[in-house]
């Protein structure tokens, strides 16, 4: 398949990320943009740019016909979907194929078979990849107890129709089973009008560990080791790293091979991620497969030295994978912090707006994948992630110390952001020790900073500002009686929040 001009059906940092690799490869790029994104960084950086409609994604970035139309107008013969938007939309993949446009992603059938959690679980079971042991059918009370004993305690009871934690019960011992089941059924009935309950192995303090896989069109499949993404806030990944502090070489090999079983089972093509839950005893269980480039791919690029977007393009062109499994490097350690436009002091409320000041960290083994610039607007319509800061070090602790130093250089003005939150995490004992689990941030360790030791410096800057404002006011006698109000209008313009 030819890939001579790539349309990037995305925005923000991932569009910029793809453009960078295309520039290195000498491939022209086509950006698309909504009303909110005329001045966005991806539009500035692409070779061509086309307008595709209103700010709301469902009227622009998600409208397949508009993307197809821009392909025609621009002559793009390939589409990179990034993540989100159309990236895991099988209909889109089919439509591009039908129009003779290379979709830089897996075949539509792979997207379909991995798109449903239950279907994916069945594929994994059939392929011999471990899944969370459980009986995903509803039974009578005594059958459920028998099943639980077979699975082994602790177990989790879950409402068949459930969601959102309702009708769920963690059962530690057989003695507690009957009463827990009764309460689970009661809650299920009152919440969902159905008291059906099934039983699954309970993973206590689970770790989210995922395997990056890569496959070509010639049936070759490799894994690019694991990433750990256990540091989450409300099921949203906050920090990712590679490798995982929990994974031994044996576990890596076992997880990698399990992931490849799934990839082989669906004749996978391109970049994919097989997500697992792991417990303290290093058992791991298939969760789902993401059939696209992952947000956190930079940490894998750090430890392997590879360019995952380049590999995606090579595979889409029909080339063979450039390396065999044995040749995939694993050097040192990488950490990634997701920089969000949100206010940690106000319950992480999103903070869109204009970025009035921006200084990104620099120096050795620091990488900032940003989607903004000084003067850019962070629109209210899209994801609040504005950048991914990643660092590498020969050891985990060195990567963490580099991240701490790099966060200290980051300056974003005009909007609120979570840099200070990440700084606190870099000094958080359990994080530094690698004692991660997906619930580690449920009890929030973050506290708004109280008056620190350097208040004098902060106030001195404000006093100078007041002094200069007064002097400007004094220098403008022409403004007459309204002088005071006018001068403070200037101060008002300085008000950015």
């Amino acid at each position: 398949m030819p890939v001579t001009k790539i349309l990037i059906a995305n925005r923000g940092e991932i569009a910029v990320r793809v453009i960078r690799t295309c520039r290195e490869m000498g491939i022209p790029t086509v950006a698309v943009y909504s009303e909110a994104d005329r001045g966005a960084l991806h539009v500035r950086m692409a070779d061509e740019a086309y307008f595709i409609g209103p700010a709301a994604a469902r009227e622009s970035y998600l409208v397949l016909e508009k993307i197809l139309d821009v392909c025609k107008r621009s002559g793009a013969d390939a589409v990179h979907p990034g993540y989100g938007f159309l990236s895991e939309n099988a209909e889109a993949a089919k439509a591009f194929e039908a129009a003779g446009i290379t979709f830089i992603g897996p075949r539509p059938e792979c997207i379909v078979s991995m798109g449903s959690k239950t279907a994916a679980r069945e594929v994994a079971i059939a392929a011999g990849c471990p899944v969370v042991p459980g009986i995903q059918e509803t039974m009578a009370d005594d059958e459920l107890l028998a099943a639980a004993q077979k699975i082994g305690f602790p177990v989790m009871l879950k409402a068949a129709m459930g969601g959102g934690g309702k009708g769920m019960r963690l059962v530690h011992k057989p003695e507690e089973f009957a009463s827990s089941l009764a309460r689970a059924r009661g809650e299920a009935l009152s919440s969902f009008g159905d008291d059906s309950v099934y039983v699954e192995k309970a993973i206590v303090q689970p770790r989210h560990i995922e395997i990056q896989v890569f496959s070509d069109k010639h049936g070759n499949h490799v894994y690019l080791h694991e990433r750990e993404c256990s540091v989450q806030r409300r099921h949203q990944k906050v920090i990712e790293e590679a490798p995982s502090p929990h994974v031994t070489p044996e576990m890596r090999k076992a997880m990698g091979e399990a992931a490849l079983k799934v990839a082989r089972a669906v004749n996978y093509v391109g970049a994919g991620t097989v997500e697992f839950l792991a417990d303290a005893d290093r058992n791991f269980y298939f969760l789902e497969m993401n059939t696209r480039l992952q947000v956190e791919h930079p940490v894998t690029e750090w430890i392997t030295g590879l360019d995952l977007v380049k590999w995606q393009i090579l595979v889409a062109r029909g080339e063979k994978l450039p390396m065999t499994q044995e040749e995939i490097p694993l050097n040192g350690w990488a950490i990634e912090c997701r920089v969000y436009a949100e206010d940690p002091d106000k319950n992480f409320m999103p903070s869109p707006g204009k970025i009035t000041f921006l200084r990104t960290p620099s120096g050795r083994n620091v990488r900032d994948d940003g989607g903004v610039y000084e003067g850019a607007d962070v629109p209210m319509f899209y994801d609040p992630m504005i950048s991914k800061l990643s660092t590498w070090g020969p050891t985990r602790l060195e990567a963490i110390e580099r991240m701490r130093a790099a966060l200290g250089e980051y300056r974003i003005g005009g909007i609120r952001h979570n840099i200070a939150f990440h700084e606190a995490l870099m000094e958080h004992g359990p994080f530094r020790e690698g004692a991660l689990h997906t619930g580690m941030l449920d009890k929030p360790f973050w506290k708004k900073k109280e008056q620190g030791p350097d208040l004098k410096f902060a106030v001195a800057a404000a006093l100078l500002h007041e002094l200069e404002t007064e002097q400007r006011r004094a220098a403008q006698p022409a403004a007459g009686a309204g002088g005071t109000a006018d001068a403070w209008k200037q101060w008002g313009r300085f008000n950015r929040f």
Partner: protein
Amino acid sequence: MKRTLLIGKDSHDVEMLHQDGATTLIWEGESHSIDILELEPGCYSILLEGRSVEVRLDGAKSPDPDTHAYRAMLYDGAYEFALVDPRRALLAGGGAAGAGGGVLAAPMPGKVVKLLVAPGDTVQEGQTLLVMEAMKMQNELKTTTTGTVKTVHVQEGATVETGASLITVAPEG
């Protein structure tokens, strides 16, 4: 130039003097020789007794025009405080409290997706009055006032800017 520094519930007397090219910071009566330079708009380099600290300054909205609220970002995090000209504070009399109380304002630009109360409803401190959406996330906005809903300023589906009044609650009693 004298100012009253308000930080949390504390207040301090602070002053900055700029004479013969030298700048002095007077902090609660104690003088510090200070070297301060605006490097970039809103970005200051300060040398004080050898230490070098960079301060990024943003203004912040304040209900009282004579109270200038600031948010300063340093290497170790953000500081929030306000400065008041003591002469103005005298003129203004009672102080800054009270203004803005009972008005639920939009903390960010976004879309009102759900109104949960109507005029006349009784509400409790901490109760969610409205749901706003911004950046793919829904945010529950809660009132800090116990009382009765007086006015609902917006409709469902409306797009609002930061600081827009959404709902006014008349305090109890």
